[in-house]
């Protein structure tokens, strides 16, 4: 009951913030785009025409490729712009709970601090995952109905987006608990997202870096930090080529998320309010 109350409270607060409506609105726009503007005519199981904004594409495109292309586009949107918006929107949800006059009342209730923080964390992950479900499932159903192609691999984007958001949210929570600043939480988390594709160039950097020491530093950073870029790439590969690169980015990112969330809980336990 208490966990549910904490999750519902996070939902209420999220819905009271305009930025979450922007996120939801963008997802709705994308769904409407595919619903009304992308027109695909299929004759005898093959694509006859594909038209966008009323203009027909040239030639006779392979419909399966078009659909996978759209899926890839949506997944890329979710991983880049969508993730940035999600982090930006969520950054204030932890500091707001720590405001004087609010936190004391929450702490006076018969719940542990761990429960309180994890409840808020879970609520936040759920808000974002629902938005992913809404967008991915919406596009999947529309394209499935329009083309007759029901490729379930696209649905993996829901799980990977939610997973990487959960990892990044751990950073937001830690910074929020330590600094009580939504701006600092956003900046640090976005910085992690930005350095991810740079750190991913490990094989090239191993060749370029001259000393063993600097290579070790690079490797350590690569394995420690969450692999937003690789996970996005893996999702894209799975959707478009049905290939799967391996589990290392998943478990190293999960390890990072658990460690950071653990640190946030520890700091929260020890703080005076």
């Amino acid at each position: 009951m208490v966990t549910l109350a904490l999750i519902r409270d996070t939902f209420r607060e999220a819905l009271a913030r305009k930025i979450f409506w922007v996120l939801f609105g963008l997802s709705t726009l994308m769904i409407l785009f595919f619903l009304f503007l992308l027109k695909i005519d299929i004759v005898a199981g093959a694509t006859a025409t594909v038209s966008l904004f009323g203009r027909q594409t040239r030639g006779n495109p392979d419909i399966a490729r078009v659909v996978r292309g759209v899926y890839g586009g949506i997944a890329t949107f979710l991983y880049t712009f969508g993730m940035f918006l999600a982090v930006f929107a969520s950054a204030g949800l932890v500091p707001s709970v720590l405001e004087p006059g609010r936190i004391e009342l929450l702490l006076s209730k018969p719940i542990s601090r761990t429960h309180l923080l994890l409840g808020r964390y879970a609520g936040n992950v759920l808000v974002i995952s629902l938005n992913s479900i809404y967008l991915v499932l919406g596009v999947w159903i529309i394209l499935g109905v329009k083309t007759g192609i029901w490729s379930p691999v696209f649905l993996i984007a829901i799980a990977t987006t939610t997973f990487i958001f959960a990892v990044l949210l751990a950073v937001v929570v830690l910074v929020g608990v330590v600094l009580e600043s939504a701006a600092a939480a956003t900046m640090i988390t976005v910085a992690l997202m930005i350095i991810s594709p740079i750190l991913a160039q490990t094989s090239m950097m191993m060749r370029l870096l001259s000393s063993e020491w600097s290579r070790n530093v690079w490797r350590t950073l690569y394995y420690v930090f969450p692999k937003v870029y690789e996970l996005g790439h893996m999702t894209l590969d799975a959707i478009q080529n049905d290939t799967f690169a391996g589990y290392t980015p998943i478990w190293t990112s999960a390890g990072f998320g658990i460690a950071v969330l653990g640190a946030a809980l520890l700091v929260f336990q020890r703080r005076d309010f």
Partner: protein
Amino acid sequence: MDSEYAIETQDLTKIYRAPWTGREVRAIDSISLRVSRGTIFGLLGPNGAGKTTFVKTLLSAVRQTRGSALIFGRNASDPAARRPIGYLPENHRFPTYFTGAGMLDFYASLSSVPAAERKKLIPKHLEMVGLSQWGAMRIGKYSKGMLQRLGLAQALIHSPSILILDEPTDGVDPVGRREIREILTRFESQGVTIFINSHLLAEVEAFCREIAILHKGKVALTGKTQELTAGKGYRLTATRPSDALTSELGAKATSTVVRDGLVDFQFPSRDLVNSALDLLRAQHCEIESLVPTTSTLEEVFVRTVEAKVDK
């Protein structure tokens, strides 16, 4: 809930250390206090005395450096110890996205009040604090007094055994204050312990059975309100007599203040003031005034704090 005390602290100390300089500030210092079950207890003290830190330690929002705090015999840091507590913080900041009813529902669920019970309790408590017409309204639109009353309903909704109220009538108009007092009196008659942290001395005097005055993080005075304010007597002001007579009368008076050629004696009884009058008149001292006095909590408070300052 076996303890005979609702609140029991032993050597409770909180020391804050500045992160860079390491300088220590003792917000509360070795506080040992007992609040009996079912009483109304007032915590008083000047600004910065440590009242809020003390309350926050009881709620485990602040971790003590030393000592113990028990709520009905359970360690205050145990979440289960907070189950019987209803708390209204000072300068509360309730989330404005709630409606009045929604806020009560949220805080009641954090105290594990079942949904079916919440449905019955919410309208009842809104009515009790005079907000039944406002339950569906977002609390962003509430006045300060309305928020205070909603905060009180929030503190009461899970039927607590102890109410910890930080400035409960802050921002409430006189009629609202009286209503809050009536609500609290009703809960006192049901055996609920009420612990009030307030600056309003007259209100504490009228309402609290026991008080403690904190000063510079320590308990400066504690006792039953009735006993502490029982200092009735007479204040005699006269032109200054000889030093010998001043000393003689000063020994019998509870206080002696010399000022601008006059001297104020406070005597506890009519006999003493009459004999003092005789002696003063025998020395041809002129009597400026003779006033019967009653000791108010304000006087007790000022005396206590000033005595501590002098020391």
